[in-house]
């Protein structure tokens, strides 16, 4: 075998795993070709699948939709999906920089896969990954791979540019569409949306007899019907529009809206939740759990609103938790008496991040005696341990159902809350905060109702609220004189902000206090804000701003965690773009104002 070939293969997974004998077999089976723009079809023929390994040069692998799948550099492999699936070759290669390419025929590839399991496994995994990013999986269609034509339901509703606004509005009403394509003869010249009519016509007091031409948006953002939904999403977010015209060979073919995109996304996380529901053991659950971070980051990359990713993470956590309880019941029979699996803090609010740990407890029927406790203790052990194995860290503060102080009958739970509320102690208050965000995840709904309504009644206590408000108003928001960030040094030596403790948590606190004062029974921060707005506890603008600040911070944290693959909440403002930095400052200012409002309203009479 040629020494330099051996050295090269030694540096290329999965060839590095092969024995010397198999390596020299591989070498003898390969041809080495010079690939340049002029001979692409000769070196990478479209009708013969082969495994290619780049020795030198730079090549782009391009899909039929003209999307760059991968930039190939020395050591990179391609061509294996067709070898493994037998499906025709659809991608093509573009030469960025001439170079040398090894090519191995199907028979030799198959022989190596048969001879070496590690070699075969490598390609099986690579194929799975490639399928996730590249093509539709066979059953569950991956919406990012759908073309616009796949989801275009109806013929376009068109209006001539010379029609009056009223004619246009009547047409929209009759066809129940939110936008019209405006045409001149056969060609597309603009788009008219609900919003255009509202903002440019009605709000401006324009005559409805004026022609559409004067109020349409033109030129139109449009895409060919063969473009991917993914591109539609990118185009929409790039131009901040909710409608795109779809054309086919330049002629109007339809309209795609943001709603069309969202309805496509909805089915996707379901496959993972289904997998969780089907898992028959903790080990199987663990296997599913391993896919969660990848799935989330894949999803986050595709989705316009990152908030969705947070929602999905919450659904995953709930599903794991549920399934663990079901598995336990399957093994140990049903509970001897009614009980409720409680979740607290971020899981209850459904705003967990990748760094969240588990916070849970158990509410038992008062009839549960020492003899029956075994079943519940077993459940607590099984679920907390199972969640930990699925990536939800055990709670450092021991807020878990395995803690005997948090696995209590109704009466004892109520006593606990009464002490927190009526005998305020600064330290206890801080620790008890988390229990005021709670949700029944599983179990007897009537028991939970009883428990929850009594706590809601107790929590209206003015002194208790004043103390909570005083605590919260003292938390420092990291924005200082002249609107500058107040950062701290991280262990990586950069200047950072903890957006959880000095942002998200403060909003959660403020909103919780208002919610307790008004005996709201929901616990997710956005829902609480909505209810507070509806009850006119807070002004609509205040609610909107706080909600926007909260969503922004939650998104920023998630993006940070997915991008940096770290599970902390430390953002370095220097690494943000100017827009994000400005948004971050705005978010902190909103929090400061809300803190002041809170102190004004409740803090009198506290500690």
């Amino acid at each position, binding site marked *: 075998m040629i020494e330099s070939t051996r050295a090269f293969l030694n540096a290329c997974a999965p060839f590095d795993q092969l024995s010397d004998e198999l390596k020299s077999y591989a070498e003898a089976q390969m041809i080495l070709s010079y690939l340049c723009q*002029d001979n692409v079809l000769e070196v990478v023929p479209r009708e013969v699948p082969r495994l290619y390994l780049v020795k*030198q040069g730079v090549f782009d692998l391009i899909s039929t939709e003209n999307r760059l799948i991968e930039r190939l550099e020395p050591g990179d492999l391609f061509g294996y999906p067709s070898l493994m699936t037998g499906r025709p070759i659809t991608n093509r290669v573009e030469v960025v920089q001439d170079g040398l390419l090894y090519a191995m025929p199907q028979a030799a590839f198959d022989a190596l896969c048969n001879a070496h399991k590690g070699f075969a496994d490598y390609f099986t995994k690579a194929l799975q990954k490639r399928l996730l990013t590249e093509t539709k999986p066979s059953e569950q269609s991956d919406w990012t791979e759908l073309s616009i034509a796949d989801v275009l339901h109806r013929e376009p509703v068109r209006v001539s540019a010379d029609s009056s606004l009223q004619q246009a509005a009547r047409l929209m009403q009759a066809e129940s569409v939110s936008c019209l394509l405006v045409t001149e003869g056969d060609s597309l010249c603009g788009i008219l949306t609900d919003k255009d009519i509202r903002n440019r016509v009605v709000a401006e007091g324009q005559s409805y007899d004026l022609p559409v031409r004067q109020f349409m948006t033109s030129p139109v953002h449009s895409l060919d019907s063969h473009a991917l939904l993914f591109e539609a999403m990118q185009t929409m977010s790039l131009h901040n529009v909710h409608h795109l015209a779809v054309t086919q060979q330049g002629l109007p073919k339809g309209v795609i809206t943001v709603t069309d995109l969202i309805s496509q996304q909805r089915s996707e996380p379901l496959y993972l939740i289904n997998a969780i529901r089907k898992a028959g053991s903790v080990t199987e659950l663990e296997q599913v759990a391993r896919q969660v971070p990848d799935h989330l980051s894949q999803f986050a990359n595709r989705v316009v609103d990152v908030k969705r990713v947070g929602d999905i993470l919450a659904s995953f956590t709930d599903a794991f938790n549920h399934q663990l309880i079901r598995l336990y019941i399957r093994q140990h029979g049903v509970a001897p008496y009614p009980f409720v699996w409680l979740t607290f803090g971020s899981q209850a609010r459904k705003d967990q991040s990748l760094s969240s740990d588990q916070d849970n407890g158990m509410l038992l029927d008062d009839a549960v005696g020492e003899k029956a406790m075994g079943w519940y203790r077993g459940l607590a052990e099984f679920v907390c341990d199972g969640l930990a194995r699925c990536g939800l860290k055990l709670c450092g503060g021991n807020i878990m159902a395995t803690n005997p102080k948090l696995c209590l009958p109704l009466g004892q739970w109520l006593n606990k809350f009464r002490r927190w509320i009526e005998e305020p102690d600064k330290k206890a208050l801080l620790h008890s905060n988390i229990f005021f965000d709670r949700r029944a995840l599983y179990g007897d709904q009537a028991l939970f109702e009883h428990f929850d309504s009594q706590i809601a009644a107790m929590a209206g206590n003015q002194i208790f609220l004043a103390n909570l408000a005083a605590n919260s108003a003292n938390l420092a928001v990291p924005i200082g004189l002249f609107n500058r960030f107040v950062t701290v040094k991280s262990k990586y030596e950069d200047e950072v902000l903890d957006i959880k403790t000095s942002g998200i948590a403060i909003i959660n606190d403020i909103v919780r206090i208002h919610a307790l004062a008004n005996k709201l029974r929901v616990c997710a921060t956005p829902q609480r804000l909505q209810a507070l707005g509806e009850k006119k506890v807070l002004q609509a603008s205040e609610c909107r701003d706080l909600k926007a600040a909260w969503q922004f911070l939650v998104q920023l944290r998630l993006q940070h965690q997915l991008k940096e693959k770290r599970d902390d909440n430390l953002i370095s403002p220097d690494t943000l773009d100017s827009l994000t930095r400005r948004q971050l400052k705005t978010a902190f200012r909103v929090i400061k104002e809300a803190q002041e409002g809170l102190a004004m309203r409740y803090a009198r009479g506290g500690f």
Partner: protein
Amino acid sequence: MLDWLFKRWRDDSLDWRDYQYLAIDLELTGLEADKCDILSIAWVALKPPNIELASAREFIVNTQAPLGQSPTIHGLTQRELGQGSSLTKAVEALFEQTAAMRNCVWLFHHASLDMAFLQLACKKLDKPWAPPPVVDTLVLEGRSLRQAGREPKAEGLSLAQCRERYGLPAYPAHSAMEDALATAELFLSFAYQHHGQSGLRLSRLTYRPLI
């Protein structure tokens, strides 16, 4: 039959891509053919744009010649050489391979040196000396540099220096096999970069050694 073969060998009027090439390299004990010996011969066949790795062969020649300083260059030890093949076997294999390839052209980097040794070996072994057309990447690159108004001596014409100009990776220290493959890669890079689009007759590339 021989006449026909001979005619084909001499026929250098087709496009350069229509030939098969045998990239050859020899490791030697020195530079003078009449005083020095062949230590190894290696080759690999190519048919543009493909290099047939399976055709790669290397013959270590069983020689009694004193090695002098040369082991530091080619890395062959007296022991390896002692276990090698006879020069006859190596040269015969080379001509067999040549005859088996249609429209074969020999490819060297610095052909005059290797050709002189091969010609003398044939003479010593009492074999007819009938080489096919020869292409020399050193000559091609030197000519190409001069045409571009650059001074070949200043730029350097060693195999490694030529490869670097074509963006080819560094390759391990001298062995006949590595050099033969390195020459094959250099030739493809040279030929496609200069003559990839327009067809070019082989006669424009061949080098006629003074026989």
